[in-house]
């Protein structure tokens, strides 16, 4: 991964887990769900119960990579009047209360609307680590390369089972922090088992030079985290946390994080 001069917050968090003999645990929550304070409280509960990296998703009107549970949560956040700039309050709220690296996951149009430079500056000022960009590929990311270098932000691109070796190499090189390996051809959502394609994607990313690869999509249980830990640096859990937050609240999110964390210890 390039731009070694820039200290990556998410890389540091993942390396810390590695030095402790653990798989890094990354937890996703949608911004503004159930409300701004609720997102901050749930994220802090995640961090206090073992999440190394927090991923805050910006609710968007057309979330093509998201399944039903996350769609329902983000629609509710938008209906409650969530505004994009509130994500900076959420990031600042979390980083002031815990050590976890905080990434923002966002579809690209809200960033483009605010202006890539403005968005990046405000994210950096809020203490954010960088962006995960599900519908931005490196081919279209010229403005984001410039802004992420300028403000020292991580750029986490996705790789998929369908990525060709050429695209894998290009995407690994373009990423900073870690590479997000999509475990399955599909959208977000809890699944009973982690696809066997995941290991192959991770191996291909490692072979292309990635130092840190984390697996997302369909990861919902401690046993999934343990399984992924055998071949990847981190496991990303989203839908299971969102469903728990919606049904049982912040405390239950903390409990689920602790349970997931039990799967992070490498044998």
């Amino acid at each position: 991964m390039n731009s070694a001069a820039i200290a990556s917050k998410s890389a540091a968090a993942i390396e810390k887990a590695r030095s402790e003999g653990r798989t890094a645990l990354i937890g996703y929550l949608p911004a503004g769900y159930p409300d701004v304070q609720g997102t901050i409280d749930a994220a802090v509960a995640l961090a206090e119960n073992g999440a190394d990296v927090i991923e805050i998703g910006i609710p968007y009107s057309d979330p093509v990579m998201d399944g039903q549970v996350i769609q329902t949560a983000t629609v509710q956040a938008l209906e409650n009047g969530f505004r994009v700039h509130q994500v900076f309050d959420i990031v600042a709220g979390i980083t002031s209360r815990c050590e976890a690296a905080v990434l923002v996951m966002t579809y690209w149009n809200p960033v483009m609307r605010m202006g890539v430079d403005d968005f990046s500056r405000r994210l950096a000022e809020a203490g954010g680590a960088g962006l995960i960009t599900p519908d931005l590929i490196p081919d279209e990311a010229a403005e984001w390369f410039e802004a992420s270098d300028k403000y020292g932000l991580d750029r986490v691109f996705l790789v998929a089972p369908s990525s060709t070796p050429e695209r894998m190499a290009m995407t690994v090189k373009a990423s900073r922090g870690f590479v997000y390996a999509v475990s399955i051809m599909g959208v977000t959502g809890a699944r009973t088992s982690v696809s066997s394609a995941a290991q192959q994607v991770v191996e291909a990313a490692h072979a292309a030079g990635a130092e840190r690869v984390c697996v997302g999509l369909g990861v919902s249980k401690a046993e999934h985290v343990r399984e992924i830990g055998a071949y990847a640096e981190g496991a990303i859990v989203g839908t299971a946390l969102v469903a728990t937050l919606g049904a049982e609240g912040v405390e239950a999110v903390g409990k689920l994080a602790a349970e997931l964390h039990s799967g992070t210890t490498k044998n």
Partner: protein
Amino acid sequence: MTQSPETPDAGEKPDTADAFLSSGSLRHAPGPYFGNYGGRWMPESLIAALDELQDTFDKAKADPEFIAQVAELNRNYSGRPSLLTEAKRFSAHAGGARIFLKREDLNHTGSHKINNVLGQALLAKRMGKTRIIAETGAGQHGVASATAAALLGLECVVYMGAEDTRRQALNVARMELLGATVIPVTAGSQTLKDAINEALRDWVANVHTTHYLLGTAAGAHPFPALVRYFHEVIGDEAREQILAQTGRLPDAVCACIGGGSNAIGIFHGFLDDPSVELYGFEAGGEGVDTDRHAATITLGRPGVLHGARSYLMQDDDGQTIESHSISAGLDYPGVGPEHSYLSDIGRAKYEPVTDSEAMDAFRLLCRTEGIIPAIESSHALAGALRVGKKLTSGKQNPQDVIIVVNLSGRGDKDVATAAEWFDLLDGNSPEAEIGAEGEQL
């Protein structure tokens, strides 16, 4: 161009877009970029499928067998070439300009949509895919996709907003008669854009077996250039026909714009004829001074939606704004990227036409020419009346002004909506109920 040297390893892409711009011709723009528009704002999971489609398309275009296959289907299945009909009595209402109608309404399935679906279904077969998925608003593209799937022996699944399935129950039945499965989409605003979102989610999960048969000249590269390619036949025929019938090129070409596929098809034939003015008419809904319209280029701002950078109806946060039009086929908050480019460089002009102007033109064509147009196409007709009056203003021989209008579809599907609009129904009839729902579009 969004490309920059900072992009690792991505600078090796052949810069076809630049070559096209420096050639001085606007025809056959290959993508991925049209000026600052177009590109691929898509999940990585789908990039391999888009590359495969691009590759298959490039090879097919160069294969005489494929070209012959498309031509044969166009001729013996769709009924091409479609006629160019002079609308003599209608012309009297356009300041006396001579108006010619490109009769895409006479194609099999009743609109221009068949051109694209046959071409893409053939490409799907070339890629070895056995299943096609499509989005539909009013049902026109869904019906056309189901038709092509039946003809070529492909499985077909159509995503349609749940709102739209209720408003267009007969089109749902048509698709089912043709063997397609229609899935109502309950996410988001339950309309066309959400049907596209759901089709994309299906595509990500089933890309090995499935081709996404996108219905308009929008979306990620190569769709805008590919969909245009299959509609270029409209403009090619129209140019030849108007030359044969009048001995010269028209002064203006008019088309309606939702995503913009019929418009880009007819514009393409005249892009390199600078004397021909090109007009795209967007859905002005209840007026562009209200928030109920679909005038994307007129009032939108550049952004990315469904894979392309283009003009977009969006709020200050970049959230897509719901569009409104009496015509479901124009009720889309985005627009194809090539139109955004043609607008920026001034080659084509884009103007809104309100529901009420479109419905006046709808009735006028019925009564003066005996042709019931689609409400979508009625926007182009209303625009042509406006352009005709403008171009003939102060002229002694208004009949020297020639305008070609793309009559992109027939209006049979719109009879309930029109009957309600013109208050032709007994208020208690089931048709009145359907019409009333249609009006809430």
